[in-house]
């Protein structure tokens, strides 16, 4: 049962796990609602469409209003899908909460990283840069980007300046330190993508 859930990053703190201090991230996951059950017969694959963060009806577009109306559930701000093996177990309107995770589980956390704007190669790719002093005129520049006439072009994938962050990032195999079903909280070891308040997708790791 590969189930996932949407959540919000609350922030980081330091907790004692097995006697040692560990950096952890606190994640709040209000229960998600099953909006649609997709099956092989109707859609070609088995999946659940889940809605997260209820909103008033005027906040969603007319087509989405129809979609939620058909399912008979309140409109939600975010919709996402998780693949499952047994679609018969679920029906529209079911709630999925943090109880699907247990202490000690390994989970993947997917989110959008902090956007840092257009950055040079030193920040973006950890280039060393040149000397700051001793008459150097080569400080934070990328240097040569390739050869001369052979191949006569810059190879694809060359590390150059550009937009940094604000990109989908998956933090893999984070250990679940604590699950609090009552308050809808999950605490994982390590950091997760994005700033506080970022919407994250949690799912069980594959291995």
């Amino acid at each position, binding site marked *: 049962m590969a189930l996932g859930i949407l959540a919000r990053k*609350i*922030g980081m*703190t*330091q907790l*004692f796990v097995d006697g040692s201090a560990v950096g952890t991230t606190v994640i709040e996951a209000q229960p998600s609602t099953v909006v649609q059950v997709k099956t092989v017969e109707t859609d070609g694959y088995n999946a659940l469409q889940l809605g997260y963060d209820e909103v008033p009806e005027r906040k969603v577009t007319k087509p989405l209003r129809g979609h939620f109306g058909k399912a008979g559930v309140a409109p939600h701000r975010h919709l996402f899908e998780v693949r499952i093996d047994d679609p018969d177990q679920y029906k529209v309107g079911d709630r999925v909460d943090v109880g699907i995770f247990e202490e000690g589980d390994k989970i993947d956390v997917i989110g959008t990283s902090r956007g840092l704007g257009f950055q040079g190669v030193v920040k973006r790719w950890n280039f060393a840069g040149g000397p700051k002093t001793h008459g150097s005129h080569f400080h934070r520049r990328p240097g040569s980007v390739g050869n001369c006439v052979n191949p006569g072009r810059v190879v694809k994938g060359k590390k150059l300046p550009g937009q940094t962050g604000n990109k989908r990032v998956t933090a893999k195999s984070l250990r679940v330190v604590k699950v609090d079903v009552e*308050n809808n*909280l999950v605490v994982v070891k390590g950091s997760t993508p994005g700033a506080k308040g970022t919407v994250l997708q949690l799912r069980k790791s594959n291995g």
Partner: protein
Amino acid sequence: MDSIIRAVEKEYLQERDTSFSPGDIIRVHERISEGAKERIQVFEGIVLKRSGSGTSEMITVRKISSGIGVEKTYPVHSPKVEKIELVKKNRTRQSRPYFLRRLRRIR
């Protein structure tokens, strides 16, 4: 959002008297495991500083051990710290009495 983090931290805080402040003399009982055996080491000295808050609060304790100044830093709420005893309250005019490091004779 911070209140949620404080609530999570609360379960990890040790129930102990942490009313000591810099300048006080305290006794820290630290649990040390050597292989399978566990023993308790006691470190008595003057609190030089308290830094941080919540679960990440640290204390620095200084004592003179056979003529040499020794400082140890402990997490206040670590489960490996068995207990912290307050030996003597002292009045300090500094919040961080670092001048003790340069004194010839203490206590």
